């Protein structure tokens, strides 16, 4: 079994209203040294019956096809754990 984490973040320059609102709230809560916040998503995916290299490929394909909106988002894939069956 393979455990992987996919992280999807907004491309540089793309407006991040969520991040901006969080920045505001953090500074209102007294966290004064926050310079910037950008929000993204993670997907923790478990795959079965697959090798590590196949998994990597297929995770990337998932991002391209569904998990990331590549017009405005970047993604990265990390294999966290690979357990042989």
């Amino acid at each position, binding site marked *: 079994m393979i455990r992987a984490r996919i992280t999807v973040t907004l491309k540089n*320059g793309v*407006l991040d*209203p969520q991040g901006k609102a969080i920045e505001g709230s953090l500074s209102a809560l007294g966290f004064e040294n926050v310079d910037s916040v950008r929000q993204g998503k993670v997907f923790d995916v478990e795959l079965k019956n697959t090798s590590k290299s196949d998994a990597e490929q297929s995770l990337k394909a998932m991002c391209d096809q569904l998990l990331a*909106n590549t017009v405005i988002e970047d993604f990265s894939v990390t294999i966290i754990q690979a357990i042989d069956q």
Partner: protein
Amino acid sequence: MNIKNSIEITPELVASHGLSGDEYDRILELTGREPSYTELGIWSAMWNEHCSYKSSKKWLKTLPTEGPQVIEGPGENAGVVDIGDGWCVVFKMESHNHPSFIEPYQGAATGVGGILRDVFTMGARPVAAMNALRFGDPEHHKTRHLVSGVVAGIGGYGNCFGVPTVGGEVQFHPRYNQNNLVNAFAAGIARIDGIFRSEAKGVGLPVVYLGAKTGRDGVGGATMASAEFDENIEQKRPTVQVGDPFTEKCLLEACMELMKTGAVIAIQDMGAAGLTCSAVEMGARGSLGVELDLDKVPVREEHMSAYEMMLSESQERMLMVLRPELETEANAIFSKWGLDFAIVGKTTDDLRFRVLHQGEEVANLPIRELGDEAPEYDRPYLEPGKYSDLNIADIEPPKDYNKALITMLGSPNLASRRWVWEQYDSLIQANTLQIPGGDAGVVRVCDENGNDTGKALAFTSDVNPRYCEADPYEGGKQAVAESYRNLSACGATPLATTDNLNFGNPEKPEVMGQFVAAVKGIGEACSALDMPIVSGNVSLYNETNGKAILPTPTIGAVGLIGDHSKHCAIGGADTGDIIFLIGRNGSHLGQSSYMRECLGREDGPPPIVDLYAERQHGEFVRAAINSGYATSCHDISDGGLAIALAEMSLANGLGAEINLLTEHPHAVLFGEDQARYLLTVDDEWADMFAANSEGSAIAFTRVGIVGGNMLKIGKLISISLDELRKTHEAWFPDYMA
């Protein structure tokens, strides 16, 4: 660090700005020298099709735009129409087609944001929104993704902003496979004496930037060239704009507060080509020059060049000319709402548009000529060809009428749109009298303190692009006529319209021919039906690989109900009510839904629109509603009488029994002849009503009676309400699942 603002102007650069050789020659002449890079950007923004209407202007001028009810016609951010007692309705429709194809959620969302800003810039609080959507073949691999993203984006923005979405359209056709259409409509209400305009007045007054910060959003493909001269700009820069409905809601509230203080002399939202267009328009309208200092512009990205700032399409921004003595008060309002407020320039008396950046003058152009001297083309056009009439006898009747009705009712273009409109908040503001699903959305008019004025407004959006393809002139007329009917069916007096003219490449004579004919049809219908066009938008070049969309001139129409207790809806009839058909029996099957869905044919001419009959029947129906005769009403459009009866039965939650004695029953049941309505009347009043109809010389038929749980039409159709409902409601959710 110093950002370079110069770059060599090459013919390629000029071309990549969408400017022709002739256009550039004219620019050289008007500038009096070679333009700077920033200036080239400014010229191109002002002279592109979107801002200058260079292909369409000649024809738009022919549209009727005046009437006693019209306070402000096309030209301002939105049209303004009198609704009595010192109140007016402000509305417009605008397309966001291309962005919604690239990134459906954000493209549609920012489309909604843009149109809302157009309305509240004028001082009107938005009270209703609609959206007219066209997608490709449901079987096309991109369609589902586009539908899901566009609908979510419209809801995401409108719901958060807090405007009820009360109507719209969704249609599918393969000709939209590569070019979907997203036309967004918004309407607001204001006191007539509380309307704000964009014309700057007074020399030396502060020009103020309001709202969100400027980023590189939407700085078009042309700017990709700029990456060559500044290594600090990331290469892969997305040109998609992200909407921030929360900021827009704050901007609305801040603007409403600000306008009350008397601080606003002129105000203009930043839409396409943001700072450039807004500043130039404000100055030129007021015969003033404008000087902007870009170092004062609130930015959210580093190292932005003058070019980028001038062309950025970042959302949720406005520009205003301020009464200087009220600066502190105005600033306080914006900081309360967490928004930027920055004095970025001033008005001048020399009719120049000057832009300063880092101590350098990066643009100095004649402000009037930027707009007034924009090219205007009389593009060659071809008169569209026409279909000859189809002979009814050549159009095969269905073998099984039940099956035909079920097929049509469950087809992508006639199935219920509930899946779409339930994602939109249609109730917010607590003034919605009719939600989507009927003929028009109806919203009550309340004053500033939430007191009911007794009035309501009705909103509808219509066009049948297949009719327009077959005959753009009749199709244009039909779009207006259908909107007139949808308003009338609710008891609303049609007031005025806005249009969104979506076509292919105007440089092709056939496409230009469609445009010219459609505008002619729309103009005639608007004149005949007293519905002047008070605002609108043109979207051309909707074309991929040489294949244009169906000509799609969307009409958004607004009607007034003087006393909303007298409105009428598609549902509401009781058992025993008599059903009347207003208008002739159906006979016309060319371009009908029946032919398309049951015979797989899209041919023949569309139905002819008799504007005189439209008007007569509409007035009659409104009078019947007004005098309390009608228990429910529905116009007859796509799918003809049978579909209208099915929709009405579903809305009533009651069946109907219809007598039918005639030849060519398929034409009677599915014919799409115009100027027709279904209207139900309490049986006690039915004779009186019939006598009145005769007295008014209106063609009408007593077609049947409401009741039971079956829709029965002669011996041909007998279907349970349950089955009708299942069929009607199933397609959309099943398709999107």
